[in-house]
């Protein structure tokens, strides 16, 4: 009798990613109904716990699924073996403990009080140790390759290094020099969060390019154009964050520099417009019918990249930012990028790998498509309402001098509908997750 083959490292991360997303959407759906359908005077004490759960585990989904994707594709792409399975297991366990500590902290009312990384230091320590395992394992695996790395391996490497840097930066507030200076602390906090987003974008976009090469044989990952966009993305990752902090009383040169760098994203938009038809090209789809599921997710990604880029470029223009900053437009931008772009790539990458080890019945496929359609349609509705509500609030507060409660009264009908859209989105993602778990449980190691 042959011993059972050990589980592929990617599998564990895909399970953990799915679990995190499930927790994130449950907390998100509960929280949004408190915001959208509450009456004035309703207490929001539970919201104080739900929001950090939603945010932390949504970010965990992105990182875990991206890491799963890297372990799924990196050895094959470079034609090398994984450096250490044991390190992937240690990484997984450390992240698991971090998740349990964060959740326990939120449920018992122990917070760091910071926006994205709201867990306390023991969870941070576990994440840092787990990331250390990933760092060593990733570079020790990738350096075995004798050939030059394709662009997506460079992107993953950059994401791994940048996360290390921004995670440290995000904890500098514990030092007195930062803690005692209000604007310095806020600047560094939001700079580090910009970098954090940039680091996971490097992992996710790397997966996107890798996937295009793996499923479609599109060998553009070593081209000059690919490396040009890599450098552009890296520049934005490092310096483009400050359009989030225009309103902080910070040095003028930082604002001008970040404004200039944010505007380089027009180049990405123009390139996207030039190649807009590519993801929908029927001929390419026909060539590899087995890949229609990941292709659909990648096509949706390209549409969301376009929508989000237009919004990001507009809100990076300082005069427009006067109205949009601190409104639900920022939230729309966050939802559009984390769900429309990041999650579409991660679902596409995960399903592509799982379906290469499993089969999909007609019934299951129908089910998956309904989740895909619901997610995208309701996300679009949610996104548009948030943009409208944010624009109305920004104009009202600047032009008509609305107070916060006046603004809330004006926005209540929109938030009511945003709540319904969010519920549809919740159901769509839930269906996708059901397919995710169901296919993953049958995928061969």
């Amino acid at each position, binding site marked *: 009798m042959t011993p059972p083959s050990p589980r592929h490292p990617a599998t564990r991360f895909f399970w953990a990613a799915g679990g995190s997303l499930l927790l994130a959407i449950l907390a998100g759906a509960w929280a949004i109904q408190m*915001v959208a359908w509450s009456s*004035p*005077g309703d*207490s*929001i*004490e539970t*919201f*104080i716990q739900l*929001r*950090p759960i939603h945010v932390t585990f949504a970010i965990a989904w992105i990182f875990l699924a991206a890491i799963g994707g890297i372990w799924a594709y990196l050895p094959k792409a470079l034609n090398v073996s994984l450096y250490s399975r044991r390190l992937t297991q240690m990484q997984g366990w450390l992240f698991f403990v971090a998740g349990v500590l964060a959740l326990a902290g939120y449920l018992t*009312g122990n*917070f*760091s*009080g*910071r*926006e994205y990384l*709201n867990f306390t230091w023991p969870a941070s320590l576990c994440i840092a140790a787990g990331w250390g395992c990933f760092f060593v394992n990733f570079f020790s695996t990738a350096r075995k390759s004798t050939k030059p790395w394709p662009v997506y391996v460079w992107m993953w490497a950059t994401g791994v290094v940048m996360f290390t840097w921004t995670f440290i930066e995000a904890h500098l507030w514990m030092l007195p020099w930062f*803690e*005692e*200076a*209000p*604007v*310095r602390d*806020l*600047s*560094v906090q*939001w*700079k580090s969060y910009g970098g954090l987003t940039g680091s996971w974008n490097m992992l996710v976009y790397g997966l996107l390019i890798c996937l295009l090469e793996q499923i479609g044989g599109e060998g553009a990952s070593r081209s000059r154009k690919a490396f040009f966009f890599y450098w552009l993305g890296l520049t934005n990752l*490092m*310096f483009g964050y400050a359009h*989030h*902090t*225009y*309103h*902080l*009383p*910070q*040095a*003028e*040169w*930082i*604002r001008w*520099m*970040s404004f200039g760098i944010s505007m380089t994203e027009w180049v990405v938009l123009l390139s996207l417009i030039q190649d807009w038809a590519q993801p929908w090209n029927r001929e390419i789809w026909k060539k590899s019918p087995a890949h229609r599921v990941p292709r659909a997710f990648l096509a949706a990604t390209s549409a969301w990249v376009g929508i989000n880029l237009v919004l990001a470029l507009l809100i990076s223009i*300082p*005069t427009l930012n*006067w*109205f949009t*900053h*601190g*409104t*639900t437009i920022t*939230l729309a931008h966050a939802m559009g990028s984390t769900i429309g772009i990041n999650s579409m790539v991660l679902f596409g990458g995960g399903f592509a790998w799982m379906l290469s080890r499993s089969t999909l019945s007609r019934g299951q496929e129908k089910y998956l498509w309904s989740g895909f359609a619901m997610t995208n349609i309701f996300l679009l509705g949610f996104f548009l309402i948030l943009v409208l509500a944010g624009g109305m609030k920004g104009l009202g*507060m*600047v*032009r008509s*001098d609305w*107070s*916060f*409660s006046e603004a809330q009264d004006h926005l209540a009908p929109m938030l009511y509908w945003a709540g319904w859209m969010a519920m549809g989105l919740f159901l769509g993602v839930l269906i996708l997750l059901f397919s995710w778990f169901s296919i993953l449980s049958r995928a061969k190691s």
Partner: protein
Amino acid sequence: MSAGVFLDTGVQQEAATFSPEGVSGKRIWLRENCMVCHQFYGMGGYLGPDLTNVISRLGSETTAWVIRNGRGSMPDLNLPEEDIRSLTIFLEEMGETGTFPQKTWPPGWFPPVHQPLPGS
């Protein structure tokens, strides 16, 4: 530029450091997870108002009253009087760093670095 954020976050920084009581207030702010609902300079949660200039808007007494009793959706945090005092000082010192939102019309390009403090 990254290093600049640490070394040159702004010309107004010389005067803008918290007093020891302000630091205590900040720790209470973090412990009570206030950022989930509130914002400073438009960054944070959307459920409650931006609190950058709350003291100049409401005054210390009213702000302390709201923290003590809750208002609208905001819960009563059951804080001891000493903590409420520290929190109010923290908010007051935060408000001295600048103004948000800028309500000038027509809007400018960047908000001014040397922002006039509310009431000045």
